[in-house]
């Protein structure tokens, strides 16, 4: 396979590329779901191809091919060069790449049980037992248990000498149950609505406790249907990791993508309020309790790897330090524009996509001192919000609105009344500035997101978020109730 990658680079260079890199990717997935007492899906997919990125006259070009024959690879390399030449005619900007050490080596996700060696019957049996446990609860409408495994084998090389092989494995499983009446639909998910994925082997699937948790969330879905709607007001809120992860994702992860800051996503999901004048200028993003890092080395994270898709080694980059904005997610061509080295944040969804700046694992660091239970006990009057239900944020990542599956009243430090259709809204720096408690590591969880969207053509990336739970004051809740 390395011969194919080398051939692509040689052809690109012969055609006039000043720099080129190529990724040959073989992707393998399998998945199963059980719904309504029967196997709903049983599927397997395999895909392979090569993506070739070139720099010509200071402009990028990219072409890919699912045909790995020599002539097809040559044609793709030549097309990438032609595309770059055409692009160079429009605009005067010239790409400069921040230097990085030549990368050579191999990385493999640590797994105990290879998911592709474990018989699929084993996962179908587990899903069946979990689904039955949900369906046994009176009043549920639909019950679904799902499993998925992904392996991506990547061979990367560049004309400046890098040569890397990586094998990334992700495994996940989750539950979803709904209850409905004429006017309302309530849903509960576990472990998160994003699918319960981790960088791990099949052992992760069996560690989730799906069968044990199934009747609990089914009961909650039914209970939610008759719960009162969360009334509007300004409240103290305590976010469980199953909601906090997405708050981090939308209001810190995306706005710290430096390509977004430079406008390259403006025509799609927008730009960012974290403009470069705020870097190293003491801009207060949140309270002093807020420490957020991009860490591509976190065990189990979906954003964990050996090198990014530009051959930059995995590393930990501070984004917010004691509440002060301190860094970006970067690529080689954006880092050079702010005088920094790349933080190694570039990945592509597959062989047929251009590598872009993507979140790695964006983690809110735990704070010693209070457990999440302690924070609830320390809250006189507030709301406990758990499990994301929907999300929306403006095109500069300032005004956000989230909905959660579960809201419970906190009175005198104890959880009480259940509410349905809970929402909260705010402005990013004001919201994070109101954070007055972050839980310790006892509830710290790595949450996997498998549907982070970015780019045109669209790319759905796997990213991770570590967090333990946190409290925020004076937040608007019950929007439109």
């Amino acid at each position, binding site marked *: 396979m390395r011969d194919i990658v080398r051939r692509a680079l040689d052809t690109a260079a012969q055609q006039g590329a000043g720099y080129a890199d190529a990724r040959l990717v073989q992707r393998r997935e399998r998945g199963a779901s059980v*719904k*309504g007492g*029967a*196997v*709903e*899906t*049983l*599927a*397997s*997919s*395999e*895909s*392979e*191809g090569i993506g070739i990125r070139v720099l010509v006259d200071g*402009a*990028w*070009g*990219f*072409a*890919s*091919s699912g*045909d790995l024959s020599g002539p097809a690879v040559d044609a793709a390399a030549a097309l990438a060069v*032609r*595309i770059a030449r*055409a*692009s160079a*005619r*429009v*605009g005067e*900007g010239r790409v400069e790449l921040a230097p990085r050490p030549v990368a050579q080596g191999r990385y493999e996700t640590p797994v105990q049980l290879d998911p592709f060696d474990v018989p*699929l019957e084993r996962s179908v049996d587990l899903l069946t037992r979990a689904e039955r446990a949900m369906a046994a609860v009176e009043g549920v409408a*639909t019950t679904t248990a799902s499993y998925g495994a992904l392996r991506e084998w990547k061979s990367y090389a560049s004309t400046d000498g890098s040569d890397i092989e990586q094998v990334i494995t992700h495994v996940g499983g989750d539950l979803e149950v*709904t209850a*409905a*009446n004429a*006017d309302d*639909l309530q849903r509960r998910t576990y472990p998160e609505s994003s699918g319960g994925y981790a960088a791990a082997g099949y052992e992760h699937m069996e560690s989730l406790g799906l069968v044990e948790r199934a009747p609990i969330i089914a009961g909650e879905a039914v209970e939610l249907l008759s719960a009162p709607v969360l009334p509007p007001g300004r409240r103290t809120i305590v976010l469980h990791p199953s909601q906090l992860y997405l708050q981090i994702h939308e209001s810190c992860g995306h706005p710290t993508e430096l390509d977004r800051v*430079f*406008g*390259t996503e*403006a*025509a799609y999901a*927008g730009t960012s309020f974290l403009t470069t004048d705020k870097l190293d200028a003491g801009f207060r993003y949140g309270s002093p309790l807020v420490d957020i890092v991009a860490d591509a080395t976190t065990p189990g994270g979906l954003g964990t790897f050996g090198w990014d898709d530009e051959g930059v080694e995995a590393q930990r980059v501070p984004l917010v330090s004691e509440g002060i904005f301190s860094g970006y997610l970067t690529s080689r061509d954006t880092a050079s524009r702010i005088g920094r080295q790349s933080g190694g944040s570039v990945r592509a969804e597959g062989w047929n996509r251009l590598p872009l700046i993507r979140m790695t694992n964006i983690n809110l660091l735990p704070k010693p001192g209070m457990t999440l239970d302690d924070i609830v006990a320390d809250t006189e009057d507030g709301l406990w919000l758990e499990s994301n239900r*929907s999300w*929306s944020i*403006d*095109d*500069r990542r*300032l*005004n956000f*609105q989230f*909905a959660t599956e579960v809201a419970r009243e906190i009175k005198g430090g104890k959880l009480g009344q259940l509410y349905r*259709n809970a*929402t909260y*809204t705010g*402005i990013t720096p004001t919201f994070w500035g109101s954070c007055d408690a972050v839980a310790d590591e006892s509830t710290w969880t790595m949450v996997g997101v498998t549907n982070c969207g970015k780019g*045109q*053509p669209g790319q759905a990336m796997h990213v991770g978020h570590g967090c333990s739970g946190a409290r925020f004051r004076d937040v608007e809740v019950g*929007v*439109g109730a």
Partner: protein
Amino acid sequence: MSDHTDTGALRIAERSVAMAIDAGASEAEAVVVDSVEALTRFANNEIHQSVAESDVSVSLRFVDGRRVAVASGNRTDDRSLRELAARAGEMARLQPENEAFTSLPTPAPISRIDGAWAAATADADPESRANAAGAVIDAARGVGAQAFGLCSTASEEVAVASSLGVAAAEARSRSQVLSVMMDADGGTGYSERVAVDVADIDAAAVGAEAADRTARMRDPIELPAGDYPVVLEAFAVVDIADWIGYTGFSALAVEEERSFFEAGRRIGSDLVTLTDDAADPLGTPASFDYEGMPKRRVPLIENGICREVVHDAQTAARAGVTSTGHGLPAPNPWGPFPLHPSLAAGTTPDDELIAPIDRGLLVTHFHYTNVVHPKQVVITGMTRDGLFLIEDGQVVAPVRNLRFTQSYLEAIANVEAVGIERRAVEGFLGTAVVPAMRLSSFSFTGTTEH
């Protein structure tokens, strides 16, 4: 894919089905998509990303009695297709019988649709996409703005074959030019065009429309959140058509009690008629779905009244009806969706829609919308790239963006007037064909800083 008469995709699908039968399948179906896609993005008045992709995907649905599995890959040589069939068969046999499964769909006559494919789109090259980007950028420079956006061209041959005799193949193409512009004074504007034939898209006109909005959006004023009468341009209306179709008009959503749908229920004003119409010549046509079933024109809402939902072969079998041709590629746990929403034009000239409004808002586009409450279709999102204050029937000022939290069912009940002109707009379900509309009230629930 070399040209629109090539049936290579169908031959691959038929070979794949034959190999599945050889591997012991009682029934089999293969979907093959042979595609060439290219997309050029621009930002800050220059091209920053330009990509091209070619691939052939094969998805095989293998049936063993009442057990079904799906395997897919992108290799089409005999050995790879045999391995695909073996992999699918092995998985199918792992599971218990599914009593709910009866059969793959049987063939039904497909009426050919003209205008699903255009040679100019298939033949578009990097230089022509760069020229289109350049035309938009020139328009931005003309008003001192920066242009951001894309020009895309895609051509594919889709084929479906099955052991029950389904054999459908069609070439389809699609092109889009889209632009957001911004300037230093807070001006921002949006425009896009979608067409089967890239030759039908005037990139300079896209640029001119976005540039005009940008110039008019400079120095926006701040308005408080609240309920306002609105005129929604087609770029915003597409979001309503998509979410209502997605949440309500899938037969699976109705089965699972997720939908508001009830045949004969009034949900919109008399002026609202929504059809799923894959033959609408203004859109991006298709004659069959990913199960090889003919696409039927389905009336979803007629003069405000719920009429029908869309079906795939599975929901149709359970309901005892025929598929409407809305199946997605297997495995498909999400059910059928109306992928070609078409909203009927009204009788009000577009430039007269704002006339009766004493104080309200003209909304160009929505951003990042999501469901708050599925059964009431309560959606939240932001306005973007063009929001204007209307007073006494005139646009009087640009306005900073607002967040809305609004039931889209209430929104279509509030429709007071529908514009004459319809345009193709790319939504999250596919290409929709929609007009502009005036609504008596729309609920804005938050503000932001730009």
